[in-house]
């Protein structure tokens, strides 16, 4: 069965510092991997996805994520955090060609302090 884990409930980082939000997955075959962001009382917004190709994926708002097959990880990163990045971040995984059957992690709350 496929699953995704976000081991940190909350990540705190100072503005201007790099940030990392961790995600590990379990899925048979080559996974499709996604990151979404949710601001308070809003729907989820797509940030980036990995389907195939370059392991480093760049997305919206300066975020990027690195697919690491040996570690089954897909950590979200940003070189310099902004206070406005404070939100809830969800990692999601699906089997190949089944992006309509996403499994979501439990979410990580990112708090960026000025």
């Amino acid at each position: 069965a496929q699953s995704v884990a976000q081991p940190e409930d909350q990540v705190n980082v100072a503005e201007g510092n790099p940030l990392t939000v961790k995600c590990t997955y379990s899925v048979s075959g080559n996974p499709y991997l996604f990151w979404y962001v949710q601001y308070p009382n809003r729907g989820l917004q797509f940030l980036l996805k990995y389907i195939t190709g370059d392991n480093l994926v760049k997305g919206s708002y300066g975020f990027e994520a690195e697919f690491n097959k040996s570690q089954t990880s897909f950590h979200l990163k940003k070189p310099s955090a902004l206070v406005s990045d404070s939100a809830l971040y969800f990692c999601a995984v699906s089997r190949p060609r089944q992006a309509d059957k996403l499994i979501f992690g439990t979410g990580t709350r990112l708090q960026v302090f000025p």
Partner: protein
Amino acid sequence: SQTIHQWPATLVQPVGSPLSLECTVEGTSNPNLYWYRQAAGRGLQLLFYSVGIGQISSEVPQNLSASRPQDRQFILSSKKLLLSDSGFYLCAWIPSQGAGANVLTFGAGSRLTVL
């Protein structure tokens, strides 16, 4: 361009009352449609999905039901609400064609409080 609408945005209902949340998608045909619930501001639980008119799959047994009376309309209902039905309900869609590389797109959500 494609857009997704959900309404109402917020709803406060007494226990035992009925519920109807609506979701419509514009600018696409025959989308796959989904209802998720987010409890306590965290994890997402898939409630229902639909691949076509009148075709509903339920992921978890519960007090809710879903219907798809039109191609781009998805409705979440209950005959009698429970306190445990409170939460943030999210509708989402993805194109049915070539879903492998496409992205699930969410509506803005409907916050339901059952008192």
